[in-house]
């Protein structure tokens, strides 16, 4: 009951935060002087192409860029009727990309869920690697296991991602016949989902997951190790040993459970750093994620496209923090029962 109420409360605060974020994003995007169309108009006028100018002027009116800022914002969100009535984000209209001359939804389409898939895979990889390694490194601290894992971990942290990507591509292709670049074989692009397509995506995911995940995993591992070491010195661990518990069970039941909190709290932070960190990697690996698109959109001041992508990343982050908050409450009775009558 407590949980459900908290989850509902947390969901509403998330929506509120999202609203605030949308305002910020809109302001930041409009901060540089001019917009895509005014730049284009100036360019066209300089070269004397008046037909283009007329089209650009038409687009300006079509997308309400000639109206005051606050009205533009409300129309973009969908709180205010634009030239075509209520048609904003909440109505499912993501806007028009001037650069690509196509609706935003068409451009991002596939890349949206591919981004989610790539980053989820990377996060799972981070957790799957960091959890056991961190625990073992703490339990066997100051032994060769600890030192080796720390060495490999720091290597992962220190190697530039794109370099790692190139190396892995080369050797992956040479020894395991892994595909190079992309997230699926070209023949599946634009095709509906099928078993073969999923299989192709999974194979293509191996190298990117590894590349995007390593630095996160080694950082997380070191953090978990430090937390575990703190916990291992606590008296309740001694109590558990004095009970006659076997070390492995004792470790996972008691100290890990306590050290797990920061681990869970990190979910929210991981998502955005993964998404932004994977932009360069995506360019190098030729992944059809949202990163490269965002880069182009920002460079050309393609405002609807970049605003939408930023909103999407913000949404991912907020969902991540919401999940970690709710998990924390589930995991830690001290948070759950704060203020309960003793």
């Amino acid at each position: 009951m407590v949980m459900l109420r908290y989850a509902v409360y947390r969901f509403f605060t998330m929506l509120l935060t999202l609203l605030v974020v949308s305002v910020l994003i809109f302001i930041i995007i409009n901060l540089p002087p001019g917009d895509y169309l005014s730049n284009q108009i100036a360019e066209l006028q300089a070269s004397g192409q008046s037909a283009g100018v007329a089209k650009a002027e038409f687009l300006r009116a079509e997308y309400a860029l000639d109206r005051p800022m606050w009205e533009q914002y409300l129309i973009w969100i969908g709180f205010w009727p634009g030239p075509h009535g209520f048609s904003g984000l909440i109505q499912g209209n993501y806007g028009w990309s001037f650069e690509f001359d196509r609706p935003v939804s068409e451009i991002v389409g596939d890349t949206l869920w591919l981004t989610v898939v790539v980053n989820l895979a990377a996060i799972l990889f981070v957790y799957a690697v960091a959890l056991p390694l961190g625990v073992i490194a703490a339990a066997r601290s100051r032994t060769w296991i600890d030192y080796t894992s720390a060495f490999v971990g720091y290597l992962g942290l220190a190697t530039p991602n794109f370099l790692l990507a190139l190396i892995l591509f080369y050797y992956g292709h040479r020894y395991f016949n892994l595909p190079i670049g992309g997230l699926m074989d070209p023949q599946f692009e634009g095709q509906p989902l099928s078993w073969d397509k999923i299989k192709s995506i999974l194979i293509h995911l191996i190298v990117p997951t590894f590349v995007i995940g390593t630095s996160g995993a080694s950082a997380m591992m070191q953090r978990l190790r430090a937390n575990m070491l703190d916990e291992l010195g606590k008296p309740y661990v001694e109590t558990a040993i004095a009970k006659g518990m076997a070390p492995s069970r004792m470790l996972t039941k008691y100290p890990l459970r306590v050290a797990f909190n920061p681990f869970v709290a990190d979910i929210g932070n991981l998502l955005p750093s993964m998404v932004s960190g994977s932009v360069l990697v995506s360019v190098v690996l030729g992944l059809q994620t949202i990163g490269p698109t965002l880069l182009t959109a920002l460079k050309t001041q393609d405002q609807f496209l970049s605003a939408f992508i930023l909103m999407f990343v913000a949404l991912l982050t907020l969902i991540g923090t919401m999940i970690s908050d709710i998990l924390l409450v589930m995991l830690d009775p001290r948070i759950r029962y704060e203020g309960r009558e003793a």
Partner: protein
Amino acid sequence: MSALLCVRDLSIGFGAGSSVVTDVNFDVKPGETLALVGESGSGKTITCRAVLRILPRTAQIRSGTITLNDSKGTCNLTAVTEREMRGIRGNRVSMIFQEPMRSLSPLHKIGNQVSEVLWLHRGLSESEARKKVLTQFERVGFPDPQRAYDSYPFELSGGMRQRAMIAMAMVSKPELLIADEPTTALDVTTQAQVLGLIKELQRETGMALILVTHDLGVVANMAEQVVVMHKGRIMEAGPAAPILTSPAHPYTKQLFDAAPEIPDQDAVGIPMPDDDLILQMKGVSKTYTMRSSKGWQADKEIYACKGVDLNLARGKTLAIVGESGSGKTTAARIALGAELPDPGGEVLFRTAPNTDPITVHNMTRAQRTAFQRNAQMVFQDPYSSLSPRMRIQDAMTEPLEIHRIGTTAEQRDKAAEMLQRVGLTADMLKRYPHAFSGGQRQRLSVARAMMLDPQLIVCDEPTSALDVSVQEQILTLLEKLQESLNLSYLFISHDLAVVARIADEVAVMRRGLIVEQAPPETLFYNPRHPYTKALIAAQPEPDINRPIDLKVVSLGAGAPDSWDEAFRFSDTVIPSLVELEPGHKVRCHV
């Protein structure tokens, strides 16, 4: 009768260093209590942990044997495999630790943690174990075992958590229980009850007990056999009665001399004079508002102290005594101006007789600076009250720098002088705190508090983190300083025996109220309030003929509504303090 546990020639060391425990021998017979007594660093804890091989990773048992010989067979605990050892831990030999607050996992329910012993060693199912644990919970004195089973540790008080630990240790019916300072972290009345409980359980089940403690009073109340340890060696060992009545070894004698005692009194004491008061607290209350976690419930008001009236005469010592949560520290913080009393309360401080007082509850910035030069504090934990990154010299001259007093050279000289005053030497100025022992650190804290030449020093349990022999030294130091500098002390403590020695007047607090107030002689000669009586009765005396009277303890240590009608109080009905004889006030209905 053969011994249940035989320790022979045990030596333990860390890494390549010399042994910290050397040639220790003792036997524990079935059903018997053996007390391992010693100060910190004596090796008593390491020795008792060696029995279950719960040692720090760098420690090794260098030589010797530990033989367990119970109804399940005989085995050499230094030679068994780790797997066999796991079958012994918590099953044939159990252990209780010092800090009940931290010895239970904060994230698992009490019932789960206790039942685990039965899952591990008896292979019981969850429901079978639950049944047994609930019986055990009832036995150790949980008023509502079902509820305790489903509680988390942070929902229970310290005493209740230690009861849960005892239940955990007892549920598998071990033949030997090792208790490592099981009551050191508890209030004195709770300590008495927990000790009583352990003794009772021991009588019922016939298990043997190794009790590790630094408190000779606890030894006198519990032990049949005593082993006195010092620097890893046994100084003296044997039956309790002769050792406690006529110790043979000089070290044991020294321990006895240092142990504070509540003296027998045969007359009332002289009340504190009231013509030259340095500190006056009038009607001081402090309420905190606890924000309700549920939006629709009103916030709760909790009072930390209520209607506190205290007078401290110049050059005297006023002690506030009470258990944790009694409001004694809040009262001291208000006296120092670190916290504001609720409106209506007054705190007055006079730097000289018959001058206008500083109103501590309502100071301007300038007044506060002046006041701070006159009132300083000595804290409880000398290990955390000195910054590990500051040289002693910097820590000591910092107050002078803040108040811009003197040149650097003058400040240095002052620091050197103060160090000598507290029995240290000036060449220690360049060192860092880690180079000092606990007792030396507390001397440093006293010296630092003295740097501004204050008139009033608030001592917040200044000796409770120290060994008895060191405690003795610090108390002597405080007395000496008071005599030579005419200092006034506001002394906060939970230990009546310490207070008996140093105070000129004692105020006993309980649930934020002063329940009895008198000079210590009067208080011990003629205690009137049931809670004061309980405190005195619960004090373990190092005298084997004066055991703790648990009946008196349980009469006064309970909630205020369990007291005799004449003393009872609740949130709404509070009797006032009545002066029974000059200088002796008791909170009761007349």
